[in-house]
């Protein structure tokens, strides 16, 4: 089984701007790419999962670095980022849109580019597709149950959430840090994630996640020509600091292990559903 999909190069990287690193989940690759794009004119608008009251994730079209930073960080709940894509090119009249998404959302974007039935004059306006690694996601009420009932922190007080080292971490605005064992979170997972065969956003121009790199750094796959040119420009402009992936610990080996775990588990679920005569994506 192929763990990563097509890619030209994998690196470990982080943003050089401290303000980005402070607000970002990991190495700030997504926020740095967006901000660089907006400032250099490579992008004229980007789609983010905005952080709203109660740590809700709501897709938003934004055009300034401040707005990008406001939406930095991972929300472990569904943010239907593709739902505002057509608005970005219609109502906002954007010509060079950047979009970030989980692997499933990136798949949706690639499909609508190849088969743009209800997407008039949209595909040519997508300038950059960023993907984030994803093991599974939670409905909002599921995330809320984990955060409020298990971690004992109110949603309005959440500063950051993270999944790592076998735990769901919740950081509160007042400085509390609570963890929840992942086994307690499983029942809240979005069940449609169990047929998902992509961990590293295999169809993005550039995909990134925390796994494989040290804290504060990101693992980055550069997949397409577009992605490669974009990263090169960022490095030249000095907005990214990079290392060879072979030089960092734990490196790609761990990414591979987790990816294969996900794919093997979900392939079983796909088989199971087929046996029951239920439909699966084909």
């Amino acid at each position: 089984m192929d763990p990563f999909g097509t890619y030209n190069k994998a690196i470990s990287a982080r943003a050089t701007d401290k303000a980005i690193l402070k607000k970002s989940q990991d190495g700030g690759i997504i926020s740095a790419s967006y901000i660089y794009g907006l400032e250099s004119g490579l992008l004229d608008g980007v789609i983010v999962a905005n952080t709203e009251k109660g740590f809700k994730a709501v897709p938003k079209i934004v055009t300034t670095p401040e707005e990008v930073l406001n939406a930095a960080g991972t929300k472990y709940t569904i943010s239907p980022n593709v739902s505002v894509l057509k608005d970005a090119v219609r109502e906002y009249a954007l010509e060079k849109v950047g979009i970030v998404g989980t692997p499933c959302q990136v798949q949706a974007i690639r499909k609508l580019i190849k088969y743009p039935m209800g997407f008039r004059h949209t595909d040519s306006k997508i300038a950059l597709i960023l993907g984030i690694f994803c093991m599974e996601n939670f409905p909002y009420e599921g995330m809320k149950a984990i955060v409020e009932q298990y971690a004992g922190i109110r949603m309005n007080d959440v500063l950051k959430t993270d999944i790592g080292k076998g735990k769901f971490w919740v950081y509160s605005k007042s400085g509390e840090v609570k963890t929840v064992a992942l086994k307690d979170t499983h029942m809240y997972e979005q069940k449609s994630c169990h047929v998902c065969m992509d961990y590293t956003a295999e169809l993005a121009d550039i995909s990134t996640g925390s796994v494989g790199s040290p804290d504060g750094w990101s693992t980055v796959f550069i997949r397409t020509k577009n992605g490669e040119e974009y990263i090169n420009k960022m490095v030249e402009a000095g907005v990214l600091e990079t290392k060879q992936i072979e030089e960092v610990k734990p490196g790609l080996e761990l990414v591979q292990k987790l990816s294969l775990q996900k794919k093997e588990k979900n392939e079983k679920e796909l088989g199971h559903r087929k046996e029951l005569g239920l439909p699966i994506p084909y």
Partner: protein
Amino acid sequence: MVRVAHIHMSGCTGCLISLADTYEKLLDILGAVELVYALTLSDEKTEITETNDKILIERKIPENIDIALVEGSVCLDDHHSLDDILTTRKNSKIVVALGACAASGGVTRFARGGQMSQPSHSAFVPIGDVIKVDLALPGCPPSTESIVNLIMAALNGDMEYLEPFAEIAKYGKDACGCDVIKGVIDMSLCMGCGTCASACQVKAIDMIDGKPNIMTEFCIKCGVCGAQCPRIRFPKVVQKIE
């Protein structure tokens, strides 16, 4: 040269306008095909016979059409309409249901007669209810790009790319916003990407708590939401990136 015809049934010409919206690409297409019939764009196939008491205008659908792009649904209460669609099938190698009305009835699903000057014209069906359809392209109208992609694939014989459209021709006549409820949410497949909501051309879909909510009163049964959902159909060709 590949002989292409545009057949106008009970449609609004929006599908043809969407094709024309390709500007320079339209010229490429027209350079690669022979447009043998399109009432909106050319009139040379019209036959006018004058008798003592009336002028008879006949528009003859030509023979040996390679690709017929059919826009609009069929009014079962209008015999001209029935004749036209049957002739189209007889004379064409590939029949494409272009757009929602031809593919799934679209807005004409709601027609129920009672209007002057033909109050008896009440029954409208997708062309697939009357003839065999080879490819169906949903959308109201289908995007310019998707029409070009489909025509180019048909010209190049790219059957792999066309496969989803062949399936929609077979199974897509009942298209509705319910497709994403029944086929995706109810099947535990919806992961909340929001593509259906963005694709919907009448904004009948809201994403609420990460799942599509269909406002059925707004839905015009265009079939685009189900067709765009990556959790129903995710063609292999989509997986190739460069």
